[in-house]
């Protein structure tokens, strides 16, 4: 437990560069992450739009990219996945909101290591620039998908994008790993060491728990991806054979001998599966926070929620093999991975049950953050229910590499996490910028996005069951898939509408930043520490005060209390926990 003075060794900076560019303030760094993710999400979304257009009109010449050749399509796919997974889903909910609100919610004046914090943002930024630069080098962006399967990714002559573009891709991922490790280090140390007096671990908001567990996942996972990436770089550029067996490319026998492409898959998915939870856990935290606040009820089963986050985190490390059922793994291993994977359904169901229990009989305030919170739960359930299908090897074999998988992970990890980000944005915007976002625009945005994403991703399950494979740049000429064209066309139009709706959000965000009605310090009548301080929070978060915590995070409608919510710092009232 620390005092304000001992942690906040740096005073409020004066110059523009120290204040907004190379800032040590976790709030500024959080916003930097957020806006980096905002840029990245629009880039990634643009790439997905190009892919959707190309699928329906394969010969169309598109703006900026021209005619889409098969390799261009694979480049778009690779860059869409990489940008979205790393620079949006990992960056915004964890590094963005986590940086801004973890210290405030635990009553700390800043992160444990502010300089490291600044470095981790700027390293992430460099990683993003390096990744995007792959579009502009000779040969273009890589083709190997966000999973970078060897040997395609491990040979420089396996395709046009696999030259410099793939090296830049690997470099970007490696830099991102280092940035994420620095961030995770900061999050864990901050949570363990900087909590205010009275803020026991079991009084932390579930957002903090989610950020904390996510940081541990990142800490253990990103080092593995880093080592996998280094092996890949060596294979590509220095002639080693970690991943490449004897292989013939364009009639030419390569010098590599005896490597194993499966080694890459094991190392990658050992990182890759926890990464899925890195993307979704913070969203779960935000949803818990919002559902409780807007239902005016304590979260249902706080301890169960905490243990469920932990269980998901632990199980997340022992299920990576379910991505590899088709790789010829031993049926015994497949069985073990299958059982472990289905076990994740248990803590996930506990969380869902508790969210529903939280809303049940609550005096629900249907404001925009709440709508997105409910949307999150909806998408999490819809996407999650197709998980047990894919977790079983016998079902995964026909469904693997079809649109079923694409639909599954977009719903549960992609859009659900995005809904977590939206919910967090609408919820914390008043605290971050001191103004309210437009409620009516927010509702329109939520409605179109929810219906739109279902319209895009639900049909994918049927496409997959009908046998449509993913990653194919053209299917309209393939006879067994021609009857799927109308459904695909519908999805493309749905994508147009959904993407258009995001500009409503963008307008709302920037318009409200300057023109929105002024927000009070606690517009949602919430209980956690960020709502006890000024709006926006001062440089040291609490204006020289050191908060003392007396209550759990979700004390709504406490019998006998004067108001229907008891702030965590309220010394009066009914003391619980």
């Amino acid at each position, binding site marked *: 437990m620390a005092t304000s003075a001992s942690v906040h060794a740096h005073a409020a900076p004066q110059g523009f560069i120290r204040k907004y560019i190379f800032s040590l303030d976790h709030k500024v760094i959080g916003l930097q992450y957020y806006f980096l993710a905002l840029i990245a999400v629009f880039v990634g979304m643009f790439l997905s739009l190009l892919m959707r257009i190309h699928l329906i009109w394969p010969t169309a010449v598109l703006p900026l990219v021209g005619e889409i050749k098969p390799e261009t399509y694979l480049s778009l796919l690779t860059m869409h996945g990489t940008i979205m997974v790393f620079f949006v889903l990992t960056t915004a909910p964890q590094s963005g909101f986590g940086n801004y609100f973890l210290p405030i919610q635990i009553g700390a004046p800043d992160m444990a290591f502010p300089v490291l914090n600044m470095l981790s943002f700027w390293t992430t930024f460099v990683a993003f620039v390096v990744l995007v630069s792959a579009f502009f080098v000779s040969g273009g962006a890589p083709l190997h998908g966000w999973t970078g399967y060897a040997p395609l990714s491990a040979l420089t002559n396996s395709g046009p994008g696999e030259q410099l573009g793939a090296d830049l891709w690997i470099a970007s991922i490696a830099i991102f790993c280092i940035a994420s490790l620095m961030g995770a280090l900061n999050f864990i140390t901050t949570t363990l060491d900087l909590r205010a007096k009275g803020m026991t671990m079991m009084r932390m908001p579930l957002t903090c728990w989610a950020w904390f567990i996510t940081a541990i996942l990142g800490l253990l996972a990103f080092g593995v991806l880093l080592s996998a990436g280094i092996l890949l770089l060596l294979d590509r550029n220095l002639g080693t054979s970690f991943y490449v067996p*004897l292989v013939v490319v364009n009639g030419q026998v390569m*010098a590599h001998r005896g490597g194993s492409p499966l080694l890459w898959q094991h190392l990658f998915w050992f990182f890759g599966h926890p990464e899925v939870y890195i993307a979704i856990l913070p969203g779960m935290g935000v949803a818990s926070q919002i559902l409780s606040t807007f239902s005016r009820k304590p979260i249902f089963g706080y301890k169960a929620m905490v243990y469920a986050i932990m269980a998901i985190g632990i199980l997340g490390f022992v299920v990576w093999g379910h991505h590899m059922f088709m790789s010829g793994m031993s049926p015994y291993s497949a069985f073990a991975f299958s059982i472990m994977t289905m076990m994740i359904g248990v803590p996930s169901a506990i969380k869902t049950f508790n969210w529903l229990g939280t809303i049940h009989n609550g005096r629900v305030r249907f404001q925009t953050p709440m709508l997105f919170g409910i949307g999150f739960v909806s998408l999490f359930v819809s996407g999650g229910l197709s998980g047990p299908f894919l977790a079983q090897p016998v079902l995964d074999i026909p469904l693997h590499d079809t649109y079923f998988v694409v639909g599954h992970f977009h719903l549960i990890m992609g859009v659900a996490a995005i809904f977590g980000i939206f919910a967090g944005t609408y919820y914390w915007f008043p605290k971050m910028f001191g103004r309210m976002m437009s409620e009516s625009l927010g509702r329109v945005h939520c409605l179109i996005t929810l219906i739109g994403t279902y319209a895009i991703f639900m049909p994918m399950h049927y496409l997959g069951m009908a046998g449509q494979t993913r990653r194919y740049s053209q299917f309209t000429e393939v006879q067994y898939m021609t009857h799927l064209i109308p459904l695909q066309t519908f999805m493309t139009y749905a994508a147009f509408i959904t993407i258009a709706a995001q500009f409503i959000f963008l307008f709302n965000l920037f318009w409200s930043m300057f023109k929105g009605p002024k927000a009070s310090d606690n517009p949602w009548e919430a209980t956690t520490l960020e709502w006890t301080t000024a709006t926006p929070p001062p440089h040291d978060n609490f204006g020289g005060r050191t908060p003392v915590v007396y209550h759990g995070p979700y004390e709504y409608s406490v019998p006998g209390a004067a108001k229907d919510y008891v702030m965590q710092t309220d010394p009066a009232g009914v003391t619980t926990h």
Partner: protein
Amino acid sequence: MTSLSPTVPVSVPETGQGGGSAPPRFGGDDGGGGDGYPDYGRRLRRARLGLAVALAPILMFFVSLVSAYIVRQGLPTFDDKTNTYVREWIPVELPLALLLVNTGLLAASSLSAELARRQITRQAALAPVRSIPGVSLGNEAGFPWLWVTVLLGGGFLVGQWLAWQQMADRGFYLATSASSSFMYLLTAAHGVHLAGGVVVLLYAAVVSLFHTPIEARRIVVDVTAWYWHFMFLLWIGIFGLLWLMR
């Protein structure tokens, strides 16, 4: 109407966590801030916690390389001449004598890092006494363990470089065989991590020539010493793997 005089909180200097020293109340530069004096005991604890957390991904990084080593060692290679799978893991001929010398150097540097850590802890403990006007503690500098550690660490890195040269002389280059690839990779990865420690210690040694507050330096030296011990143990693990699991 009576009023009580406002109580002024008197804070007792807190005991430092590891070295048993009481950090001084006013400790010089706090990084250009001015909103309070740094509490070195707390900062030391936080730095140590940060280090402990940071060791986890480093360990994971090496664990994944080692597991790749074990997997790769067991894999057969397809021989295109005979169309059969053969075992093609060529055991590396390690320059054993040189590596043992390097191990000795690293062990010695780990010891001297520990002595440097204890020395600066003692100096930090005595700093408040030294700040009393008219009190002298005699020869304050003591034996330069920090510089010795830097030299021994540098010696280890040079020794590793020589080991690579001997490997190359024996015909084992990076891409010769998977075994030699791993040998170069593991030693290089360890060397890079150790070089980071050398740079930090060098920084601490150089700034000690200027008048930086000893407590700030103590945190750097303390944390790096622990890191250094970890690097030593890691090297024993890597060396054992490369030697015993050829």
